[in-house]
């Protein structure tokens, strides 16, 4: 263990500089996040994630945000275990019939002010699954969406750029 730890210390951090904030995402957020929220939250957001029907590809890349290269928490962004602790709800997947209610309840359990981020092509409008009888549609068909991050799946840099845009508006 000592060897691995010393090597990590000597090597220096792997963490990379942040990507530029997504301009399109910023534009999308202008209307949704106001100054009051900024005062209340400071430069920090707690994120609760719900997979509402994803193939789990998006989840893999969300996980990657916590690795040494992207280190999400340095930006004041962190994933929390309960919706009651969250400011932001990230949602992946087309919303399935079977997940609709659980998604709604998670959203309702979050305190105001709160924002919803739809992540991945399926979450935007159902993607490849739109029209399937087992699927309600995109996240916007169930909840008010403040930001969309496209991609199948979006890679960690795209995810980071989108979430940083949210932080910039919210803080």
């Amino acid at each position, binding site marked *: *263990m000592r*060897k*691995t*730890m010393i090597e*990590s210390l000597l090597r220096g951090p*792997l963490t990379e500089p942040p990507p530029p904030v997504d301009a399109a995402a910023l534009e999308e957020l202008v209307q949704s996040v106001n100054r009051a929220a900024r005062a209340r939250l400071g430069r920090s957001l707690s994120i609760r*994630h*719900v*997979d*509402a*029907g*994803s*193939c*789990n*590809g*998006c*989840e*893999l*890349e*969300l*996980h*990657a945000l*916590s*690795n*040494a*290269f992207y280190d999400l928490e340095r930006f004041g962004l962190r*994933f929390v*275990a*309960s*919706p009651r602790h969250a400011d932001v709800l990230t949602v992946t*997947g*087309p919303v*399935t*019939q*079977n*997940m609709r209610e*659980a998604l709604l309840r*998670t959203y309702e359990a979050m305190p105001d002010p709160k924002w919803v981020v739809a992540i991945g092509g399926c979450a935007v409008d159902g993607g*490849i*699954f739109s*029209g*399937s*009888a*087992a*699927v309600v549609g995109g996240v916007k068909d169930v909840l008010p969406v403040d930001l969309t991050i496209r991609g*199948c*799946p979006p*890679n960690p840099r795209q995810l980071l750029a989108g979430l940083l845009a949210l932080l910039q508006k919210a803080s």
Partner: protein
Amino acid sequence: MTLSHETVNVDGWLEAGDRLAGGSLTLLGLWADPPNVKMAMLDEASGDINIITYACRHGQYPAVGVKHPPAIRLERAIRDLHKLDAIGASDTRPWLKHTAPPYEFLAAEGEALHQIAVGPVHAGIIEPGHFRFTANGEFLVRLEARLGYVHRGIEASMVGVTLDRAAMFAARGSGDSTVAYGLAFALAAETALGIAAPRRAIYLRALMAELERLANHFGDIGAICNDASFSLMHAQCGILRELTLRAAEACFSHRLMMDLIVPGGVARDINEDGVAQLRALLAEVRRVFPHLTELYDNTASLQDRTVTTGSVKPEYARQFGAGGFVGRASGRDFDARRRPGYAPYDALKFDVPVLTAGDVNARVWIRIREVEQSLALVEQILAALPQGDLRIDLPSRGGDGLALAEAFRGDVLVWLRLADDGSVARCHLRDASWFQWPLLETAVEGNIVADFPLCNKSFNCSYAGHDL
């Protein structure tokens, strides 16, 4: 390996159920192609696969699950999706379709038992599913999973679309195994059409499959240790996983290599400059991974959590035909790359590690050994990569085909039937998780509640791949 097809009457269907229950055959899949039901069975001794077809009468067929429990959930799914009833079934609750009235969980009787309900939304960034625990103090006496939350209607969506379009649905069966799903689908389609992909494509497919296996095994090994509160391994394995995904992106322009395996070949060639990054990855893993293995092996506090925790009995692994590290950690020597086997693995050297302890520790060690095998396979593939075409044109004709491909968590089975114009008439995807989820329920019995995340992560079953 030979693959045989047979149409059976009631007696033939029942006899097959008896042979499954008796253990001379292993259930590979049970699905509907209305008005028929089909069952694929493996003869473990010879490696032969037999597919039997039974024509339902009045939408009914004799239940297999009542004699052979691994079939129960498959029968429940068939009823939900195709309205065909298994007559004589002991469990007639819905499975993939969630409808009112409230779902009745199986009962547990005894003094001082209490229930803990978890999910479908979990604390971490994971897929949705519900776990109903019955505990006596800290000890689990029963776990029952309720799945189906991410049922997207994949199989219904594939009906009537082109093979290329259907391949995109298959690739989203389970995102962590998108390469394996693409591969199994392509192999099934090629079997149905009586064609084979060009040799270069076959080698590139295997390269992607081994990269996918490496990335997932790194992620799993780290995440299992993390669930035992040993975050150093998690951080270090996370680095290896990220480097693997970056090498995949450098080679194939997509981190998860999604939609790159298509019926008839591969959608794109390997980027030449990606190969250097891939070789650098191999060197880095060979340098770092032995230290991490040693660290895992020599950390007593970690071993204390993983050894003898969450044991799967070998007889259950055999009965359920459990694939992947779940089966191989419990003595079931099965790997679809070997048997039924597919190119180019017949020309490559690799071992299939098998252990018998069946605990969390054994499932970690299977992954560690498979990382070593996959590294060697990637090296062999790079050395032997033939020149030539990437894809052949697909003929427009009918047919049906079955294929198995080895994903990191076990065998993915795909069966499909093509209409005369070459479009998909019916396709069935069966993730390895179908036969692993029930074993998780047996593995946690007698363990403490706090060890469930550890057990669960060591299985890492797919929700999406199972829920379809």
